[in-house]
């Protein structure tokens, strides 16, 4: 069963079409990253699942439960750490957690144990009697995760959980989330830190202007970009050595590449620098060229991301659920 399943999900705010028909499936147990620039519709998508935003059209289900018709079952499965802080101001944080667990039907004594456990997990147990307002920025982020996990959710949704936090905290949060995922919790994470998606996610979906423009694994996405190999030969050259000419095939295949001369150096663009490099070196060696220096740059997911979202108008939509 899918943890999340949406079909042609739409949301309009006045004149603004924030979601333009999003169809997405997140499998049970998966770690799914929803990537997209600010205003892409990530938060809107999440808020429809928990009922903070009313969809204008389409379908959304969580573990098979319709988010409107079966709202209680759908919400019971979800633990949400929202982008903005929204924590009860009247109660110390431990009690806020006990309440949250209680709303999910956890009896008080069990809820208290869960609250302590969650606070220990995120490392702010000694602040349990403090009100949220008095926590430091980093502790606030930790608390948001504690509140999301206190109900022992099957689906953990984290909306930019590491926005504006330092490296140490980011790694702490990653570790906790990863462990939960390994223990079977499905995770939906939105971010615009590409590194985060690359490290954590089984699959990523790229959302741009309310449309899913891509769904694939981070690796697949990486291989989609073009790597560049720059070879400096002894003495400037002004034409691509003939040994390489025959190999040019426009760079369409995984092992294809395209070579040209730039500032007297040989520049090879390829899908896969690792595989191409050996071949290029062999060809140059056979042709009697002396290689002085090799510089290789791999595309970052960042570049692919920018590329995909920049010209998504002409990007064909990726087939769904192909990973």
């Amino acid at each position: 069963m899918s943890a999340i399943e949406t079909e042609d999900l739409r949301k309009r705010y006045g004149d603004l079409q924030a979601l333009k028909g999003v169809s997405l499936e997140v499998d049970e147990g998966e770690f799914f990253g929803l990537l997209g620039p600010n205003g892409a519709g990530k938060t809107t998508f999440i808020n429809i699942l928990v009922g903070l935003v009313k969809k204008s059209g389409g379908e959304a289900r969580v573990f098979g439960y319709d988010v409107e018709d079966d709202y209680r079952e759908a919400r019971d499965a979800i633990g949400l750490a929202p982008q903005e802080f929204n924590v009860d101001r009247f109660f110390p944080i431990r009690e806020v957690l006990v309440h949250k667990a209680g709303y999910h039907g956890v009896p008080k004594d069990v809820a208290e144990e869960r609250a302590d456990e969650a606070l220990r997990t995120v490392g702010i147990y000694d602040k349990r009697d403090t009100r949220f307002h008095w926590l430091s920025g980093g502790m606030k982020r930790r608390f948001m995760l504690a509140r999301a996990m206190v109900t022992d959710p099957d689906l953990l949704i984290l909306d930019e959980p590491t926005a504006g936090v330092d490296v140490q905290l980011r790694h702490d949060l990653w570790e906790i989330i990863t462990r939960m995922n390994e223990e079977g919790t499905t995770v939906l994470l939105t971010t615009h830190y590409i590194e985060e998606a690359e490290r954590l996610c089984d699959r990523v979906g790229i959302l741009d202007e309310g449309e899913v423009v891509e769904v694939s694994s981070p690796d697949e996405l990486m291989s989609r970009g073009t790597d560049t190999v720059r070879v400096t030969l002894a003495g400037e050259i002004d034409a691509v050595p003939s040994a390489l000419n025959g190999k040019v095939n426009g760079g369409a295949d995984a092992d294809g590449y395209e070579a040209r001369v730039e500032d007297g150096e040989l520049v090879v663009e390829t899908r896969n620098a690792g595989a191409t490099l050996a071949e290029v070196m062999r060809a140059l060696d056979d042709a009697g060229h002396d290689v002085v220096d090799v510089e290789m740059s791999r595309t970052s997911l960042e570049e692919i991301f920018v590329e995909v979202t920049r010209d998504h108008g002409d990007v064909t939509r990726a087939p769904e659920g192909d990973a």
Partner: protein
Amino acid sequence: MSTRSYGLPTGFVTLMRREVLRYIRRPRNTFMPPLITNVLYFSVFGVILGNRVGEIQGVSYILFLLPGLVVLGAISNSFENSSFSIFHGRWNEYIQATTTSPLSYTHMVLAYVLSSALRGVLIGILITGVGAIFTSVTVRNPFYLVAFILVITVLFSALGVVGGLWARDFDYLTVMNQFLLRPLVFFGGIFYSLEVLPTLWFYVSLLNPMVYMVNGVRYGFLGADAVDVGPNAALVVLTTAAVAVVALDIVLFRRGYGLTE
């Protein structure tokens, strides 16, 4: 979600507890203002003015006043509590932690309404206690007293939920209180008997729902009845109104009015 406590759903009990603790733990905010205000009311109107007014409907003015002040305190505290709690939660967005939980909309509404009604009842008891310092309080019809107090606190808590969902700013809460609640209350026969009014105004006053609430509670305390509407008819109408407004609250929650984008 299936776990229960006291035979009631845990989610509902938890939200109810949260709502009650919010005001119980801040006694200076919750109990001091009505305490002071009512000591003043009883001293100034009851004692100082009361000596000049003499008897109304066969009781001392201070005793006549007491049921009205109880109604005033009970309903305004009920209304303020639910409207504030919901609006404050919306304003600071923490109500989202509740509204995204698997509580049914009915349970959410009942928790807000009943916790606020309880606050109204507690303030009503407090005011009765203050009154008892100034005069000897009698309860002639305990059933009607309890019934009317319960119904009007539920009614105004439920109205407060509508107000809390509707408000866009803290000013809205002040406006509702000052311009809607107060006039209704002050022309509702708390401080005077409708019998003293000219005929026209007597009948106009009968359009004010507050008249029946004050009248009903007064009937509970004093057994006296100033209006030609029996307490039973008033009770039926007010109960109907309370149920209708609670139902409206549930519809608003289900539609996400003021709670969703």
